[in-house]
């Protein structure tokens, strides 16, 4: 892995960990408690940032996949894979922390309401992204198919966003970006932004390392093929 990736990842990681420590201090010692839901509302500060990072990651997958189909630059495919892996993990966080909150706030762990269902669908689509990659004998074809899944999957993100307006939903209306201004308490808003910053920094740090890992992996494959130790798979090094 290049020193540039290693050092940039390390700097972002250190900043992310520092901001995470600040976030935990704010969540457990500083931010006021919401009157109706009580302390369980503090799940908000990990649930929403995880959703933000997941959507951003899948946005990166879609853009990198689209440009990969256009330019056939392997680095874009590697970036898409790295982002997709992070996106799946952060969506998993969303899907696990949401029910813990919903059990107390709504009285149920899970309900097939539009936003929850579409978020679960998003998770399955990007699981499919990895299955499609490894389902063809020709790796290049697998990458192309996966790129299409990555692009189509991102179309679910605006659906998740708009589902609360289009359908009857347990999720209420937006609380931050409203025409009348945020309805959140200012301290809660500050804590939310620290959470968003912390998770975004951590994601980009690990994304860079995951991207570096993909490059090392491809480098090793190319070397083994060049040395004749591994038979050249159809489509590789083309």
């Amino acid at each position, binding site marked *: 892995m290049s020193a540039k990736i290693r050092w940039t990842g390390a700097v972002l990681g250190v900043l992310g960990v520092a901001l995470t420590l600040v976030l935990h201090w704010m969540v457990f010692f500083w931010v006021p408690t919401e009157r109706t839901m009580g302390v369980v509302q503090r799940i908000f500060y990990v649930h929403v940032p995880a959703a933000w990072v997941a959507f951003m990651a899948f946005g990166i997958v879609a853009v990198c996949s689209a440009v990969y189909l256009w330019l056939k630059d392997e680095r874009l495919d590697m970036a898409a894979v790295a982002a997709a892996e992070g996106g799946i993990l952060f969506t998993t966080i969303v899907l696990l922390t949401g029910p813990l909150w919903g059990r107390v706030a709504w009285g149920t762990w899970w309900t097939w309401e539009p936003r929850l269902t579409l978020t679960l669908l998003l998770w399955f689509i990007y699981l499919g992204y990895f299955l499609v990659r490894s389902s063809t004998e020709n790796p290049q074809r697998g990458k192309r198919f996966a790129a299409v899944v990555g692009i189509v999957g991102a179309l679910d993100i*605006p659906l998740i966003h708009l589902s609360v307006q289009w359908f009857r939903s347990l999720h209420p209306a937006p609380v931050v970006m409203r025409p009348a201004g945020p309805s959140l308490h200012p301290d809660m808003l500050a804590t*939310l932004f620290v959470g968003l910053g912390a998770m975004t920094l951590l994601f980009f740090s690990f994304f860079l390392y995951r991207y570096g890992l993909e490059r090392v992996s491809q480098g090793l494959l190319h070397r083994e093929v060049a040395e004749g130790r591994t038979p050249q798979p159809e489509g590789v090094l083309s």
Partner: protein
Amino acid sequence: MIRGILFALALIALSLALVVPAEAVVPGGSMAEVIQGGLADPQALAGQNLRGYTHMFIAYFIAWAIIFGWVISIARRLRRLEKALRE
């Protein structure tokens, strides 16, 4: 042509994705009414709704366990590959 359309669709999806967190939605109202004082404040704690206290800690544990697990996984895979590269 098809690639151009796919690229445009991806850009639109990304733009919308960037808007989503700003319009963060939560289960249960506007969250405008609060009880002052963090969890560490005993006086404030007495008046708080502690329902789901364990749920909150489990949620944070799960979130950081998954993130930490990803880091460990990347580090292990990277070490294995770099070892293979050296051999």
